[in-house]
């Protein structure tokens, strides 16, 4: 087969699978699962083929919207290093998660729906990765949002799940609003939506630095929404209402990384834009990374801890875009993060299943002995997350922080101190869940998960450990310029890490029955969620009720119905002139005569 077709097959296989599941096997869970897994494996296999063939380029395009001479949006495929790496990461992890899901979702009533949505998600994600223009990316961007919506709302009977899905979709839409506006601005300035053409025509916009700044920042809004940056991060923790594999795939490894991927994709544009753009990106990332770390330290739900850690790590990636001279810094962290975060979530899923859907870490404990494979894998993932030396996370994360040292010292201190927080919440999680004694019935009787679940863990644990080493990295990334930070920076990072680990050990190693530290501000996520609740319920709801009232009583009541009533009333009054009395009629007649004659003769 023509290798040119491979990317197309990669892209459309999952969609076909979704369609087949939805319309043919909507009542056959097993078949649905098999088809999905086969599709994922096929996509993964072909992705590796594409990845291993660097000479392959795709030139064919499908015209999607074509207005000759005015506007055209093709569906085209871009194959460069960036997309190749992303392709293998996405498909590989997806394959593992698809397989893992077979175990995790066993017995669920909505399996076909689940797999259809997963396939749809994979399709959309691949679309983002392969998109060669803004509109196509936006299309798949939105589709990712909707598949995420379906998957988060998988347990739709639960009010919390239903609300979380809705919230995820809406928050993403808010980000997309900015994204689209940014696309429009860039399009108007450069006359194209294709990435390469936009970059080539940028010179026309640099005359208007303010315009370009605004455009870039609006595009960045897309990232804020999709990659859960402050202040639009609230949906991600709530999305943990979805099944754990979903959290693992979408909300840790791939979908949320799409925002970072998009920034990497338009990195040349960002470089051409005024300095302030990347400054803003840096600070959004830094604040996110630090604040999410704070929130993570006080969460009790195992998945929520991981969710906040994800936000925090995404913050690092965004910082990477903001400070590094190449997008590879961020992409590298995305790459390692994908493995270890997926691993962590799958481990958490394994724990949750073993504990019969118990998610409170304070009801766990002592699982190391009962679930050794899971525990060891989680340990590997945790160490990588915390950035412990010799684990993948340390390579990529330290790289970003070092770039911050070089280019923005304040940013450095914020991101570096976030390492301290990372260490605290990571080790807190590990200590409380796996050490000490069981704090609950389920924890006591926990058993190791079946092979279909543990196997992906073990497989993932390998890259989670080794993905950072240069010999492995070189396989995926070109040699990237070194930040060149002095050893001092590195020492500071290590000091923060050590301090965090020690603090966590002091507090949690003894196996307390409940959290010895209570900081309501962090536990309540800085009250940002409450603020949004207020915004939606009071401001938006209030406005809605107000306009509804206005519509009903003023526009309809006064203007429309009121006008009709006036006419009616006028008719009612006019007919009262018809008093039925002959003499009155004669009088009206006479008066009319006088009036008409006067009008006619003397006016």
């Amino acid at each position, binding site marked *: 087969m023509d290798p040119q077709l491979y990317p197309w097959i990669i892209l459309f296989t999952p969609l076909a699978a979704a369609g087949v599941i939805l319309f043919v096997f909507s009542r056959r869970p097993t078949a649905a699962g098999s088809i999905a897994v086969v599709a994922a494996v096929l996509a993964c296999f072909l992705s590796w083929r594409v990845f291993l063939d660097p000479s392959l380029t795709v030139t064919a395009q499908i015209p999607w919207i074509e207005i000759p001479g005015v506007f055209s949006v093709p569906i085209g495929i871009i194959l460069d290093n960036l997309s190749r790496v992303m392709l293998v990461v996405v498909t590989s992890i997806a394959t593992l998660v698809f397989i893992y899901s077979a175990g995790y979702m066993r017995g669920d009533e909505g399996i076909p729906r689940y797999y259809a949505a997963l396939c749809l998600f994979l399709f959309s994600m691949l679309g983002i990765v392969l998109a060669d223009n803004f509109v196509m990316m936006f299309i798949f961007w939105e589709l990712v949002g909707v598949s995420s919506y379906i998957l988060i709302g998988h347990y739709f009977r639960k009010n919390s799940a239903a609300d979380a899905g809705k919230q995820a979709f809406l928050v993403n839409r808010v980000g997309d609003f900015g994204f689209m506006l940014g696309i429009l601005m860039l399009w108007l300035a450069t006359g194209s939506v294709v990435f390469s053409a936009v970059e080539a025509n940028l010179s026309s916009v640099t005359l208007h630095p303010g315009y370009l700044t605004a455009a870039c920042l609006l595009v960045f809004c897309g990232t804020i929404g999709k990659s859960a940056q402050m202040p639009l991060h609230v949906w991600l923790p709530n999305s943990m209402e979805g099944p754990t594999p979903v959290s693992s795939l979408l909300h840790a490894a791939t979908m949320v990384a799409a925002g970072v991927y998009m920034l990497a994709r338009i990195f040349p544009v960002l470089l051409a834009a005024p300095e302030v753009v990347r400054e803003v990106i840096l600070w959004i990332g830094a604040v996110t990374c630090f604040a999410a770390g704070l929130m993570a330290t006080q969460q009790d739900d195992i998945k929520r801890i991981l969710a906040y850690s994800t936000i925090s790590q995404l913050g690092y990636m965004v910082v990477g875009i903001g400070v590094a001279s190449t997008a590879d810094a961020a992409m590298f962290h995305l790459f390692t993060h994908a493995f270890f975060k997926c691993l962590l979530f799958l481990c958490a899923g394994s724990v949750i299943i073993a504990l019969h859907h118990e998610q409170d870490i304070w009801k766990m404990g002592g699982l190391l002995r009962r679930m050794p494979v899971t525990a060891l894998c989680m340990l590997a993932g945790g160490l990588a997350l915390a950035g412990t030396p010799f684990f993948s996370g340390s390579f990529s994360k330290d790289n970003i922080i070092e770039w911050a040292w070089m280019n923005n010292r304040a940013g450095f201190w914020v991101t570096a101190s976030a390492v301290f927080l990372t260490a605290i919440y990571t080790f807190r999680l590990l200590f409380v869940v796996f050490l000490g004694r069981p704090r609950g019935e389920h924890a006591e009787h926990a058993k190791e998960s079946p092979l279909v679940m543990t196997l992906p863990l073990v497989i993932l644990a390998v890259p989670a450990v080794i993905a950072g080493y240069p010999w492995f990295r070189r396989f995926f990334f070109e040699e990237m310029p070194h930040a060149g930070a002095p050893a001092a920076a590195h020492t500071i990072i290590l000091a923060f890490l050590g301090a965090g680990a020690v603090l966590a050990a002091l507090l949690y190693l003894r196996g307390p029955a409940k959290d010895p530290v209570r900081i309501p501000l962090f536990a309540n996520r800085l009250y940002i969620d409450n603020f949004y609740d207020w915004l939606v319920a009071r401001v938006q709801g209030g406005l809605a009720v107000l306009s509804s009232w206005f519509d009903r009583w003023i526009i309809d009541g006064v203007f429309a119905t009121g006008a009709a009533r006036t006419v009616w009333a006028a008719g009612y009054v006019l007919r009262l002139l018809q008093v039925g009395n002959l003499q009155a009629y004669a*009088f009206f007649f006479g008066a009319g005569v*006088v009036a008409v004659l006067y009008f006619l003769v003397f006016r």
Partner: protein
Amino acid sequence: MLIIQFWVLSVLMLGSAVCVVVFRNAVNSAMSLVLSFLALSGLYVTLDAFFIGIIQVLVYAGAVMVLFLFIIMLLDLKVEARRTLNLAAVFGGLAVLAGFVFLIGQIVLSFPASGESFPALARTGYSDVSEVGVALFGNFNLPFQVIGVLLLVSTIGVVILSRRSLR
């Protein structure tokens, strides 16, 4: 001479016309009406319209008024039963009347020919009966026939409307 005739007849005519409106008894009104019409026919004569004057007496003072009186007798109408006077109606009516009189006054005063006297007639002793008759049966033949149909219809109508019982 003519002017005295004119004023006497005019005053008589208008006065009795006012009586028609004012008298409460229908019979009195009808009699005043006869008087008014007679005075009117006199005015016609002052305008050299002898034929019209005669017709006025014959048709109006004769036929029409007899019909009126006949109906009044037939219906046995007494003095109009006193009802509360509708003051609003009276004042309204008077206002309309005032307006109308004002209008007519203005028109007559502004009409250039009002101040002219009547030109003398070229010949005297002509027979206006024959003149009118010739016009009526000659030039005005078509309207005259229409009037004929009109009278036919009126006759049928009166029969239909007033016969005690139709056959």
